[in-house]
């Protein structure tokens, strides 16, 4: 989409024009909405720190701080957390590499029919995954019968990489269309450089801004995925969303553990978002066609 990251920062003098009361009203509304948005977070944090959770006191602050919930939730989620880190990182890197290659071709080295192929890729970004899930599941079972190691995280790496190709391709294509001027490519071609060499020595060195966006985008969507996890993995080899659903489901009465589990399972993406927030917004913008 047309929106780019740099435009989100405000440039004018802040609020000089608005009358005093309008400004107060505006800030009051902003604070009110912020409180509403943070309310579920409050429940999570407060409950996770209680030693005993009584139904009647759920909204009050803990009387004595206890980290038992955090410890026991971490113990239960730890194996899945490790698997999810590996899965999300590897699939983000693979999808980014493929996206950069495709994006370069679609932006600057088109072959006959490239536009049609690109549109077909884009549609792949929008499809409801339910539409491929049944045959995908039986295909994965078939592959597993030949290669027993193709299960759990390995399957999810493959699936997230493949279904991440469209969005990564789009992000890189849009980026290269402005970041790699045609003139430079022409000059390099005149100098006798082939496509692969141009890609390696001219295009890759300027790719970092788009790569950050696709890495973050892919990492968070792989981390947060539940649908593929549910259909293609089980409790012994699944990612953290699967483990969290197991932890929170059923009749688990330990609310402190459950709420701490939610926070632990969300920490990596929240951390990515807090530390790399600027790029995260960039990812959202470029993903706006998604």
């Amino acid at each position, binding site marked *: *989409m047309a*929106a780019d990251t740099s*435009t*989100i*920062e*405000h*440039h004018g003098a*802040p*609020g000089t024009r608005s009358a005093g009361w309008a400004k107060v009203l505006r800030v009051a509304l*902003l604070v009110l*909405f*912020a409180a509403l*948005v943070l*309310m*579920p977070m409050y*429940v*999570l944090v407060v409950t996770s720190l209680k030693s005993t959770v009584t139904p*009647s006191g*759920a*909204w009050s602050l803990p009387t004595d701080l206890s980290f038992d919930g955090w410890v026991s939730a971490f113990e239960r989620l730890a194996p899945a957390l490790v698997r999810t880190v590996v899965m999300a990182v590897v699939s983000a890197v693979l999808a980014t590499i*493929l996206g950069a*290659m495709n994006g370069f*071709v679609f932006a600057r*080295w088109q*072959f*006959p029919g*490239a536009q049609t*192929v690109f549109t077909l*890729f884009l549609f792949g970004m*929008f*499809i*409801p995954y*339910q*539409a*491929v899930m*049944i*045959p995908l599941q039986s295909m994965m079972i078939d592959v597993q019968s030949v290669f027993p190691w193709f299960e759990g995280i390995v399957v999810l790496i493959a699936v997230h990489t*493949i*279904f991440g*190709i*469209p969005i990564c391709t789009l992000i890189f294509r849009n980026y290269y269309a402005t970041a790699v001027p045609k003139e430079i490519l022409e000059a390099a071609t005149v100098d006798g450089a082939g*496509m692969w060499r141009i890609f390696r020595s001219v295009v890759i060195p300027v790719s970092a801004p788009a790569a950050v966006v696709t890495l973050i985008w892919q990492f968070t969507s792989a981390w947060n995925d*539940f649908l593929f996890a549910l259909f293609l993995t089980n409790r012994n080899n699944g990612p953290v*969303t699967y483990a*969290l*659903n197991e932890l*929170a*489901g059923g009749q688990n009465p330990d609310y402190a553990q*459950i*709420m701490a*589990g*939610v926070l632990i399972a*969300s920490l990596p*993406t929240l951390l990515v978002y*807090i530390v790399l927030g600027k790029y995260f*917004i960039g990812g*959202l*913008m470029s993903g*706006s*066609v998604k």
Partner: protein
Amino acid sequence: MQRPKNWLPGLLMVLPSIILVGIFVYYLIAQNIWTSLNVATRRVVVGGKFEERSIHEGGYRNYTELLGSADYQHALWNLLVLTVVFVVGTMIMGLLWSILLEKGVRGEGVFRSIYLFPMAVSFIAAGVVWRWLLSPAKGEGAAIGLNQLFVKLGLDGLQSSWWSADSRWNMAAMALPAIWQLSGYIMALFLAGFRGIGEDQREAARIDGASEWQVYRHVLFPQLSPIALSALIIVGHMSMKMFDLIYAIAGPNSYTASVPATLMWTQLFAQRDPVAAAVNATIILVIVAVVVVPYLWYTNRTERERG
């Protein structure tokens, strides 16, 4: 066109992705449609003997059968209510927040981060806490979650059975957590849109005597309509395939909160009926495609016009 010598390396570079997308998107869709058209029988015990009984006649009749079933129509109605409330809710909240923020206030970055953070949380994680918040129990002592908060604040009248309510509109409550998660995203889109419009345009309108409201109505909003359209498509198509959140809040096989995507899970695993599940999945694909294909066509065209 250039000589093949020039473009062939480009094609080779994309080839791995073409093969992967070809197989995992288009071939699997074809296979799913093929499954949906199958004839299916089920072994049943009749008078102490096994008997093969037809459960799907095959072909288009599999579709008319599902579309005509009460369970499916209930799920479709739920999806409609969910989608309308979700889309309208996120658009209103997103636009409102962006208007509150667009002129710049102190601490804007903090507000922006707060509004946007739910987007970084998975539907499964959000579903756990919202399941508690939207607990149906009511009344002093019994109520938990939001109802309990309302009782404590003396707002007993606001208590609700939320999505568990025996009502045709219960799915409006299921849209609440979804609105909570996505409004910040829509805010970010609109905010970027506002900031992309030069200050000189507002200035010119003000000099012409336009009120603040008129500046928004006649200068700013019209320029945001392409963004509003993308936002609409993004939220709309997310709603149509929404699964995780409902699964986490209402459980895997809830009838009350069923939508086509969760019904598909029930068909596949609880009812062991892959044909019906494939029919259902194909219809979800068609519904999404009806919305998305014209949009892709439209953006493709405007992009080409822009050069």
